[in-house]
């Protein structure tokens, strides 16, 4: 449990910095740190799929999108590179590379996913009791609309909200102010 309190503390500090800082890029990176902490939490709670989604959306997608679309408040680093910074970057990349090698060694062989091998996995329940519990012959439909219908509700909400945003921002007839119309 201690790890969760450490992660919670990390997330709270990152959130406070994200609100308080003046630099936009630092703020975005702090939001990425929040997402990273949350994805680590999901990983420790044994929900790797949600952890992957979290890290892709909140860390990679958010930072890249905001960095690419917002053109003001750019930070350029000029001058020579510092020797210490280069050494630290190279060491960190090397450590991540070593960790990646370790991770790839522990992966199961191709075609034998962990979720089908484990006896207590949720997918086993879906496969063995899906037809009896929902009556749907298509197990995918029974999973997305019965066992995990909350997930589908969330997806539908995301779609609905994005369509509202698109139709409001891209509307053809702009709602002009009355005095503009009179002119």
């Amino acid at each position, binding site marked *: 449990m201690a790890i969760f309190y450490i992660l919670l503390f990390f997330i709270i500090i990152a959130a406070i910095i994200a609100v308080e800082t003046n630099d936009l890029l630092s703020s975005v990176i702090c939001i990425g740190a929040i997402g990273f902490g949350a994805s680590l939490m999901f990983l420790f709670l044994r929900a790797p799929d949600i952890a992957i989604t979290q890290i892709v959306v909140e860390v990679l997608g958010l930072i890249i999108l905001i960095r690419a679309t917002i053109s003001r408040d750019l930070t350029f680093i000029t001058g020579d590179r510092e020797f210490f910074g280069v050494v630290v970057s190279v060491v960190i990349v090397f450590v991540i590379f070593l960790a990646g090698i370790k991770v790839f060694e522990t992966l199961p062989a191709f075609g034998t996913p962990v979720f089908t091998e484990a006896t207590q996995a949720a997918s086993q329940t879906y496969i063995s009791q899906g037809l009896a519990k929902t*009556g749907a*012959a298509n197990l*995918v439909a029974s999973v997305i609309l019965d066992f995990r*219908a909350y997930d589908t509700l969330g997806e539908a909400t995301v*779609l609905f909200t994005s369509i509202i945003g698109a139709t409001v921002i891209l509307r053809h007839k702009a709602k002009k102010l009355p005095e503009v119309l009179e002119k």
Partner: protein
Amino acid sequence: MKGMTVIVKTISSWIKVLIFMFGIYIVITGHLTPGGGFAGGIILASSYVLLMLAFGRKFVEENLPLAAASRLDCLGAFLFAVIAILGMVLGGSFFVNFLYQKYLPGEPLSLISAGTIPLSNIAIGLKVSASLFLVILTLSIFRPDISADKKEQN
């Protein structure tokens, strides 16, 4: 005349019905065969997109106006929420499959089975098709206001 050539128009006016029927089939039998609301909704929307490409935007806008499409979109979302809340009222918890468990068990592998799953599929199909159509229509209507950009540059 707007749109593409006569050949494209003729072919697409034959094919649009088949695409539309196939989309409805995918939505309705989503609980029996691969498919479902999301896939079927996109096929339904693509039949309208084909019409838009072949006959021009005005034709499609007269056929299915923006206001009607957005109402269909809202109707789909509303139906999905209603099914979820009915589960809470009649079955005891949110999104419970109350039709299958209590009222209408149905035969497995037949069209009327699996309780609320086909109804949810229809709601999602309505929602996805209308919203995809809406987003393509609004993107095709949208023209960036160039004069505003020029003012900013000056």
